């Protein structure tokens, strides 16, 4: 019974840890399916986390914080879009610039405003997103196995967790079933085909990059308003890059992206759980080794356990009309 509750706690924590990954991963999915490589997910998450925390602190409203996070992320997305789409610049360079700019700006502005080494003041009450209890969670707790699973793993998260699942659903359905989705899928594979069909390539790519901005805004706001109670410098800790790995792992598809992000979140949760635990036959495992686990697995998985992952063909290539 104790193992079960421990497992449930790890799963619960895995869900929480996978949410920012999932938002970032879906953002990358939109961007790359349209043909714009986005290595700046990390920077957008960070900028959104800071803006969300600052706005929530100023107004005392988590929803205002979310809005500010989305706006900040959109701003960075526009910068990347302008460089990559309008100016046909190198998308990797532009993405790296977004990351560096976000890391520097959040630290600088945070220190200037609050003087707490880059942190924002701790948030409480309505300035944070509170967990929601799904209907019947308490009543279901008594049912063996399934009850705690529902009450502790599925229920009891903030609204942003459920928003992430909804975003996955919307992404999958939009790409598959709508005109806009068809055009996005096409423009990431062969922009010339879209252009000759009389549809604007830049408009589609801007739309996709802005959707990515909104999603990163949600991911960043989740970090500082739901997972933590305020902004910490470098609090994204490479999540934007792990999200890119998850995106490849999921082969640029929405539901597999949810699966991949949950797997990475779960690994993270396990590594936290295993810290300080004595393993049979090994003894006490060094904390660093356990913390490296998700990253080591990323390398192993990406090195060939997922089969061929073929990116959208035009991904990363600026579109220039040929004569």
């Amino acid at each position, binding site marked *: 019974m104790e193992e079960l509750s421990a497992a449930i706690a790890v799963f619960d924590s895995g869900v929480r840890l996978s949410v920012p990954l999932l938002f970032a991963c879906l953002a990358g999915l939109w961007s790359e399916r349209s043909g714009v490589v986005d290595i700046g997910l990390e920077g957008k998450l960070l900028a959104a986390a800071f803006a969300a925390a600052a706005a929530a602190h100023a107004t005392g409203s988590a929803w205002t914080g979310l809005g500010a996070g989305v706006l900040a992320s959109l701003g960075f997305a526009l910068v990347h879009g302008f460089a990559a789409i309008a100016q046909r610049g190198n998308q990797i360079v532009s993405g790296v610039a977004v990351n560096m700019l976000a890391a520097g700006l959040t630290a600088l502005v945070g220190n200037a405003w609050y003087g707490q080494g880059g942190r924002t003041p701790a948030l409480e009450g309505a300035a944070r997103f509170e967990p929601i209890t799904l209907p019947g969670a308490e009543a279901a707790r008594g049912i063996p196995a399934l009850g705690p699973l529902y009450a502790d793993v599925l229920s009891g998260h903030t609204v942003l967790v459920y928003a992430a699942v909804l975003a996955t659903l919307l992404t999958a359905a939009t790409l598959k079933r709508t005109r806009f989705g068809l055009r996005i899928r*096409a423009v990431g*594979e062969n922009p010339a085909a879209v*252009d000759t*069909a*009389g*549809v604007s390539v830049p408009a589609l790519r801007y739309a996709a990059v802005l959707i990515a901005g909104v999603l990163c805004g949600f991911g960043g706001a989740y970090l500082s308003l739901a997972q933590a109670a305020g902004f910490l410098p470098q609090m994204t800790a490479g999540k934007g890059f792990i999200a890119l790995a998850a995106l490849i792992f999921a082969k640029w598809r929405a539901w597999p992206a949810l699966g991949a992000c949950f797997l990475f979140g779960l690994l993270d949760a396990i590594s936290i759980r295993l810290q300080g635990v004595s393993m049979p036959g090994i003894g006490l495992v060094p904390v660093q080794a356990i913390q490296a686990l998700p990253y080591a697995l990323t390398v192993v998985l990406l090195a060939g356990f997922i089969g061929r992952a073929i990116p959208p063909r035009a991904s990363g290539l600026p579109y220039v009309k040929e004569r």
Partner: protein
Amino acid sequence: MTSNVSPVSLDRATPPLAIELVGIDKRFGDVHANKGVDLTVRKGSIHGIVGENGAGKSTLMSILYGFYEADRGEIRVGGVARRIRSPGEAIAAGIGMVHQHFMLVEPLSVIDNVMLGAEGGPRLAAGARQVRARLAQLAADYGLALDPDAIVGDLPVGLQQRVEIVKALVRGADVLVLDEPTAVLTPDEADGLFRLLRILADEGKTVILITHKLREIMAITDRVSVMRRGEMVATLDTAATSPAQLAELMVGRRVLLRVEKAPAAPGPVVLAAENVVVRDARGTARVDGVSLTIRAGEIVGIAGIAGNGQSELLEALAGMRPLAGGTVALEGRALSPAERDPAALRRRGLLHVPEDRMRTGLVPAFEACESAMLGFQDERRYGAGALLDRGAIVSDALERMEAYDVRPRAPLLKTSKFSGGNQQKIVLAREIERGPKVLLVGQPTRGVDIGAIEFIHRRLVALRDQGVGVLLVSVELEEIMALADRILVMCGGRITGERLPGETDERDLGLLMAGVAERAA
């Protein structure tokens, strides 16, 4: 009433016009691509446009399709002046285009490709039902059968082209522009396309066919316009012209369409391949057990549709790809893997004019004189050590530019600034002047204009007459027929037949190229 000649009856006297281009002018930087071009195309006709590469045909059609906007000039569609600033506006004006490089999204299905840009609403399901019905109707009307759910990338090129044509028709195109449509087709597929175009024209659609193959112009078009250096030089009824006249109009001087050559006098075998197998990165056999011999003083031609292993075979023989099986022998001695190093092979007299000159033949960003000695930079005449002898490089390049009539004679000009034909001459000169025993040549006249083609063909024949063994890989059947002393046909990585040029024709070779005629061999 009856005594008056009304404008209506005048219209009956001259056929109605589908497209009129008036004084179209377009510059790209220094290049004056279209110089005040006029063109009229009659409704319900098949109108050919011929010209050398760079004559401005594609630019003109791109302007008609709204891909570019003309600097000056007017476009009239069905007698009405229209401004066409985007492909969307061209589609709205009833103009459809089938590009030389298909504008298809390969991982998507046929129906998704046909719908793209004309989905009929924000949700796909409703539009898909309509397009499905249209596809069935087109299949019934014109015999354009297609499986709507097939993935386009899995279809053979002939069917991919059909998807492009269907795309245009579904959007209600009355004028269909086809840019070099037969470049990727077998002769049989090309005949099928021509039959279809004739049916479309008979139904009242107008077809504009851009090509550089005069045979096609003669076979299918009603009228033909000739472009040269950005100008429209003539528009003629096809029945009243001849290939020789068209070639002369295209080039501006008389051209020999046939290569004159004496019978070959083959000597000993200089290059022999035995059961050669080449695999690609995925492990698929691209060349699957090919054996061939090349004798001194003969041209062996390899015909085949692009992508049937000819390129891989050529690269394997040149030492650029490892062999997964089989052996290659140069002058009777089997080569070890170490000896198959491309540089070592070149030193032993096996030289190579690669198929893709922009990627493997030259460095476009280098000066012409540097491109003209690539691969030989370690030789003593160019310095042989750490420092290059610039003087020798430039004077050698200039000498060869004279001998091969490369224009402009500017060794210091960037390679990419030369035209395709002149770039090809730079590569040819580099390899031929090294004194090959065996010369491997891939697509020597791809993207090369008629005047340069004539020169290159004469040069290859002269080389053969000097006793060099030449292996010629080309997707241009006419080129193979004109030059080769022996013809091998490849399909699916295998040699499907060997023919002597006097004992075969395009139909026979076409069947071998399609891999259907081994039993007839």
